[in-house]
């Protein structure tokens, strides 16, 4: 059953079917909140809050865009609100009040296909740096990086969600990656493997 059909049934008086919507989108929304909050322990509460927000506003879904676009729009806006309110906390990968298990979950889920312990450690360090750098990006860049790389959305979908032309989305993504590179270089204290190579053709 399509999302839009399911929403229509829920609105006709079957609110318990909203669990189906939660099941379909929980991983994607949770993934967004974890990336936006930089692994902050609020990410779980934030994801729950987004679903409550969706439920409360379900009647206002008019079907002008697909349900997923509408849901992502609500989610991204809510996450950006969170970022504005918690600017100070975003540079910490792991918030001090987080439970230890959650910290381990967040890091250990990063794939470690590399062999030696040194390489595994290096990969974890790189990932930490990357998440810190993403957290430091301006909002408009952060949103496109998260949606493109962690949600695998197309430029068109991102444009619909953010109400931006496709060209602007492309530009934001390009600049976001440039900014990420600069931040990673800064974190490593200067010239590193992230440094720009200019290749003559």
């Amino acid at each position: 059953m399509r999302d839009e059909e399911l929403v229509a049934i829920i609105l006709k008086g079957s609110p318990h079917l909203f669990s189906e919507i939660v099941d379909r989108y929980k991983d994607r929304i949770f993934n967004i909140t974890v990336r936006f909050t930089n692994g902050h322990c609020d990410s779980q509460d934030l994801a729950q809050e987004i679903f409550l927000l969706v439920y409360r506003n379900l009647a206002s879904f008019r079907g002008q865009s697909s349900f997923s676009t509408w849901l992502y729009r609500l989610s991204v806006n809510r996450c950006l609100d969170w970022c504005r309110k918690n600017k100070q906390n975003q540079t910490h990968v792991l918030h001090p009040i987080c439970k230890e298990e959650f910290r381990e979950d967040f890091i250990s889920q990063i794939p470690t296909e590399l062999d030696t312990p040194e390489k595994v450690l290096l990969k974890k360090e790189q990932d930490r740096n990357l998440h810190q750098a993403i957290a430091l990006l301006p909002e408009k860049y952060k949103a496109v990086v998260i949606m493109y790389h962690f949600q695998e959305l197309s430029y068109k979908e991102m444009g619909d969600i953010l109400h931006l032309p496709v060209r602007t989305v492309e530009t934001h993504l390009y600049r976001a990656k440039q900014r990420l590179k600069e931040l990673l270089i800064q974190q490593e204290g200067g010239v590193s493997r992230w440094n720009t190579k200019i290749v003559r053709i």
Partner: protein
Amino acid sequence: MEHKNSTHLKSDQPIEHLLATQAFISAPDDFTIRVMRKLNELPAPRRALPPVYQQWGASFVAAGLLLLLLNNVPIIASITPFSQNVNMHTHRAILDLDTFSLETINMQLSDGFYYFTDLLTKPLRSLSNL
């Protein structure tokens, strides 16, 4: 041919690789149960009337009121004597100083206001007679 502008950045590659090797983080197993537990405390969402229907509804009400007003001819007709009465006596009071007296003006104006009061109360009386 040597192109001065034929340089391009290949620097995205390591960043792209790092971004591509990030894992997808799943929600906890009991996430849906927790969300549904919280949702049960909220009132069920209901489909609001689309704006088009709301506008249609408002238009019907407005049209109904207009018809009620137009069908009640004595109400409209009573407006004319009222305005005529006020105008006529005001002008006469100014132009014809011989007939000017406060008592006359008061009396004739009160006739006008009688029509006005009647005009306002007539719809209410009509409704109560229904």
